[in-house]
């Protein structure tokens, strides 16, 4: 069986690879909490603009904030209740502070009337119809980048292939696995709508070889579907990075500083495909998603949570007491939160508790072992970049390819001298932006 792989990257060692914690546990549907905190800044672009007022009654699925410009997105209420505040400042999982709409749950669970379509009807929609649905439902890339999905499908460039990313190379996360295991049919239908929206003749679902069961399931389901195929990838970090995934599958590289559409490819997460399927067939906007709660907690598992749920709702007080670190996103690319008063946003699919911060030092001199260079998936020289940053030679960063860095953290992970290479590189990026 052919397995695809990319050049560079590293194997996360067994002790840190903890997918087994949550991979077989039951999914818990979180009963809606009393308050939901919905940040207005859940996408790449500008924050959405609230269209409700304090004291308004809202229903589940009702739009509460509207997109502001092309790269922004709509926001919907996952529950029915009363709007308590519309400018509540809250710590976001990205590490920023942003304004949030606070909704108090009335537990009546009243829904707005969703526009339902049968699969037959849905397959008859035009490209414009589907991109409109994407835009209206507030779909953003659920892999973590939160790039508004409709933008990817409304460009002028011709799309040759849609790739669904089901790799999930983060060592703790299993939310995408659960999606593919429980909802692979919806994922495949979502991909079909994406093919309609993009006009691409071909769709590929990408799965890593540690998820053989879903690979087989999807493969069986795809019999008699010539346009869609499923591809198997070797387990390696960061296989799920968009550009590395494309180069592994097609042997084509996204140009430096470019987007996948420049070589006729659109990449979306499997979660996005499922959300699109729901939006098209049931008319439901993006209000819930799967969240892996794992690490050093008493019962690690996947939850189906409404967006806006606070971390404190899914991580108990007892669990927090025995941990010092709370991560949002993932072990390798996530962010450490300083407080549990942080809401789950569209781009967050895991909450991880760690007993302690892993060894971050002391930083010893670089011994030029070139591990970081050999394993960098963007073919950079992290140690050279770090030295340029250290000695303030910012003008040479660009020619050394700083902007190709995808911040996967492989360099910091492998460095035997415990040099936080990625921190230097991030600082270099900041300095370049500032100039």
């Amino acid at each position, binding site marked *: 069986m052919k397995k695809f792989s990319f050049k560079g990257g590293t194997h996360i060692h067994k002790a*840190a690879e903890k997918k087994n914690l949550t991979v077989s546990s039951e999914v818990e549907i979180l009963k809606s909490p009393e308050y939901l905190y919905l940040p207005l800044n859940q996408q790449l672009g500008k924050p959405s603009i609230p269209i409700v007022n304090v004291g308004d009654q809202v229903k589940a699925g009702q739009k509460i904030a509207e997109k502001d410009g092309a790269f922004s997105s709509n926001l919907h209420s996952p529950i029915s209740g009363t709007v308590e505040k519309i400018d509540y400042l809250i710590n976001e999982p990205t590490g920023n502070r942003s304004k949030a709409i606070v909704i108090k749950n009335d537990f009546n669970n009243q829904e707005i009337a969703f526009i339902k379509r049968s699969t037959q009807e849905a397959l008859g929609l035009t490209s414009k119809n589907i991109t409109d649905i994407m835009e209206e439902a507030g779909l953003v890339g659920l892999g973590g980048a939160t790039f508004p999905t409709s933008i990817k499908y409304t460009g002028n460039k011709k799309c040759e292939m849609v790739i669904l990313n089901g790799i999930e190379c983060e060592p703790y996360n299993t939310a995408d696995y659960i999606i593919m295991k429980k909802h692979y049919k919806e994922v495949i239908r979502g991909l079909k709508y994406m093919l309609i929206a993009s006009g691409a003749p071909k769709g590929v679902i990408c799965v890593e070889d540690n998820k053989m069961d879903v690979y087989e399931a999807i493969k069986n389901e795809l019999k008699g579907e010539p346009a869609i195929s499923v591809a198997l990838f070797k387990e390696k970090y960061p296989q799920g990075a968009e550009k590395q995934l494309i180069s592994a599958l097609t042997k084509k590289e996204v140009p430096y500083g470019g987007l996948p559409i420049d070589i006729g490819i659109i990449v979306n997460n499997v979660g996005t495909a499922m959300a699109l399927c729901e939006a098209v067939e049931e008319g439901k906007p993006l209000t819930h998603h799967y969240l892996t709660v794992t690490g050093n907690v008493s019962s690690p598992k996947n939850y189906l949570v409404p967006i806006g749920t606070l971390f404190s709702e899914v991580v108990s007080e007892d669990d927090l007491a025995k941990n010092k670190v709370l991560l949002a996103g993932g072990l390798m*690319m996530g962010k450490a939160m300083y407080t549990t008063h942080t809401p789950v946003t569209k781009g967050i699919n895991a909450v991880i508790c760690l007993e*302690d911060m*892993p060894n971050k030092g002391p930083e*010893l001199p670089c011994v030029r072992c*070139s591990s970081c260079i050999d394993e960098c998936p963007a073919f950079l*020289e992290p140690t050279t970049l770090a030295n340029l940053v250290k000695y303030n030679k910012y003008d040479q960063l660009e020619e050394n390819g700083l902007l190709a860095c995808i911040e996967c953290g492989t360099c910091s992970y492998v460095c035997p001298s415990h040099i936080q290479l990625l921190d230097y590189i991030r600082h270099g990026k900041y300095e370049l932006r500032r100039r």
Partner: protein
Amino acid sequence: MENFMKKISFSPFAHSGDSVKKAMLDVIIALLPVVLASILFFRTDSVLLLVATVGSAIIFEYLSRKVLKRYNSVDDLSAVVTGLILALTLPPATPIPIAIFGSFIAIVVVKQLFGGLGNNIFNPAAAARGFLLIAFSVPLTTWTNPATAAYVDATSSATPLAIVKSIMLNIKAGDLEVAKEAYNTFISDPSHLIQLLFTGNVAGSIGETSAIAILIGLIYLVIKKRIHLEITLTYVLTSFIVSLIIGLIYGFGLLFPLISILSGGLLFGAVFMATDWVTSPNTKKGRIIFGVGLGVLTIVIRLFSNFPEGVLFSILIMNMIVPLIDRHTKNRIFGKVKKNEKK
């Protein structure tokens, strides 16, 4: 209720668990077969040299860091590795004070004065060995036979390299016939000669004679992924090809390149000295250039210079141009098109 976390930092929140100390420990383990072989063949001479250089290397490392007011770096074990490698490249009869002076040069002058581990331009052990060879050329070119002596040349305990050198000198003098005759006596019993070179039961530096011990160390390093194999391979292969060509020119036959590789410090240098992380190039491309350069220089120095051995000087010369190699062998950055390639 709001709970505050005790620690925050930036991603990634995992580490491979690797460290410089572990890497150095792996090199020390890989050197153990060589150390054992040296003790087997040269007995007390070898033990005394090893203890003296390793011990003094640790002391010099500690003292120099103290004087230079830097943190204590003895526990990264790099001084132990330097001391071991230096001792293993010395002839068995080296006077102990000279060996200790060698570790002073390696640790203090070549390593610490250049900024400590990671900043040295030259491989400390190679540079110190080269310095000793020039400064104390008589004691450092006096060879004694192994205690278990098997290969005894009629005249003295000459190393295989010295014999090759004398043959080359004959050629230089124009006595091609004499040279051929000497070479034929040298390889009169080829299987025995190769066997001796493999096991290491010949005169030579205490750690450089036994090819088998070095290969065991190499295998360990490869398994542990502590070695850039492309340097070792290109180095050995280039030396083989260059000496094959020269051998064919002088009509020495096919055994000559094999003797070139197995004799002297070539294998030891290719496995333990040229592959030193700090003083070898960053990228694969650079390492291949580095290895080819080493191979050519080693054989040329061996056969055409005044020295019988070329490993040390070839390593030192190539160390000097590593920054240059690094600058011109950068990897193509992901998504960027090569300059000479059209979009």
